[in-house]
């Protein structure tokens, strides 16, 4: 009877008929509304209710995306953006998880990093971008490091709290079964904390994309962010809208991929399939 979510709606809709309607709407509703929005968009643009400059027709935007795809520019942009986002994400993941585990394990490390991390965590790190440009130039290096820096503290904190929340009994059992200090860390604490660590990484991933796009908008050098900002500069509104759609799809793809990876890594772990979002 573990269906508290169902129960919430039961209250407001006592009839069985409502139940069936709800299920229909939950399944097909999104398609209907999205269809309606797209239709309204096309009609508004066609009828010139809004000037094409502010709202180019959906078909124009779709054609633009098609052109970008055929010319290969879209793939190149996506590849560049993803390369920067994922390279930075990978650095942040390695550094963040390692540091997080060390902080959870060693008092000295905790003493040194705790104030630094808790100070840096809520800072808008994107403000450091001009400094990164100054230090590492305008190319991929500064973009990747900016992404890595923006994500690291968050991953440190989530790893730390994940390792901290591993049950003491589990660690003690491993110890009494003869596991060494290091083996306990690698063979018990890390896997036990893995679900929460992955949650931290999942939360950090969209930020990687955000920072990568901003760095491209500011420094140029290709990628979806750069291309889109160029379109805005040359008041090329189909380009801007194409960019939004492309970035939206890439963002959605990243989140979906991360969800799949999580499922693979956590096959042993019993968790509800709906991980917090809708």
């Amino acid at each position: 009877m573990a269906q508290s979510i169902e129960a919430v709606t039961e209250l407001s809709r006592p009839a069985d008929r409502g139940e069936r309607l709800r299920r229909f709407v939950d399944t097909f509703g999104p398609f209907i509304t999205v269809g309606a929005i797209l239709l309204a968009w096309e009609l508004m643009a066609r009828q010139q209710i809004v000037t094409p400059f502010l709202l180019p027709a959906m078909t124009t935007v779709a054609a633009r995306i098609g052109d970008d795809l055929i010319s290969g520019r879209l793939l190149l942009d996506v590849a560049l953006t993803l390369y920067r986002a994922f390279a930075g994400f990978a650095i942040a993941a390695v550094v963040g998880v390692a540091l997080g585990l060390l902080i959870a394990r060693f008092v000295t490390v905790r003493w040194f990093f705790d104030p630094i991390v808790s100070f840096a965590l809520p800072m808008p790190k994107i403000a450091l971008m001009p400094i990164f440009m100054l230090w590492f130039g305008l190319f991929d290096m500064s973009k990747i490091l900016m992404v890595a820096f923006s994500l690291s503290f968050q991953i440190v904190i989530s790893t730390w709290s994940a390792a901290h929340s591993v049950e003491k009994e589990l660690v003690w059992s491993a110890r009494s079964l003869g596991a060494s200090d290091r083996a306990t860390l690698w063979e018990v604490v890390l896997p036990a904390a893995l679900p929460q660590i992955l949650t931290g990484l999942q939360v950090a991933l969209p930020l990687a994309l955000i920072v990568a796009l901003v760095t491209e908008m500011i420094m140029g050098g290709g990628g979806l962010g750069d291309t889109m900002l160029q379109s805005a500069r040359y008041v090329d509104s189909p380009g801007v809208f194409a960019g939004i759609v492309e970035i939206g799809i890439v963002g959605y793809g990243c989140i979906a991929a991360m969800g799949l990876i999580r499922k693979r890594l956590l096959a042993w772990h019993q968790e509800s399939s709906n991980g917090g979002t809708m």
Partner: protein
Amino acid sequence: MSAPATAVPGAGAAAPGTGISISRVGYEYRPPRGRPVLALENISLDIKDREFVALLGPSGCGKSTLLYLIGGFMPLQQGSISVNGRIVTAPGPDRGIVFQSFALFPWKTVIQNILYGLEKRGLPREECRRRAQHYIDLVHLRGFEDSYPSQLSGGMKQRVAIARTLATEPGTLLMDEPFGALDSQTRTIMQDELLSIWRRSPMTVIFVTHDVREAVLLADRVAVMTARPGRIKALVDTRFSGAADSAEVVRSREYADAVDHLWTLVREEAVAAGAGGRP
């Protein structure tokens, strides 16, 4: 061992239109994915006014579901339920409920929790406070009026929940394994207190439990339910003549016999449900 239930103090013979009448009730859970589960099948049960009835059965037999249907919290799919002659369609202040999980509003203090239902009834402010204080005293929580639930022990939380429900003076009290989350000493104390409150001001009580001793000790009548799908397997009178003190009841021969009898009935069902495993 069975005195007729009509001998409940203060209660007359069950007149038509009083008490609770459950007639051919069925209920099926339809999870968003997977097969529907038949939780209740063809349940019929008449409960007299001011009778204390326990619903007893193994975990997952649908006894809580039946209680929620009487409360009007879930839509009735089959059959009908009426309380004091009125068909149940929605929750109402005539049926108070107490949950195992206490269901206290964690953002309200003890007295604010108890005031909530009173204020809904539109009573004057002074009257609300007076009554709230009365019920706080009744459950021995004087001095904790301004505590938040998170500062209370499990037993104290359940006292607040009981006081909150009693304060609105519902004719019917629905209790969903109310003492299931408490340690055994606290549970014994709470059982005694519930009995003494009920003896002073009897009302209709439906008490869901899977604890045979608790059912026998508290109830006038015990309805034993079968494993899923839930049906009424047996109705057993458990009213003992004369004994006022529950410690005395527990030592009596009738009590031991009743527990033994019910335990056999429940055990068969628990075994049938898969060695009593939780679903």
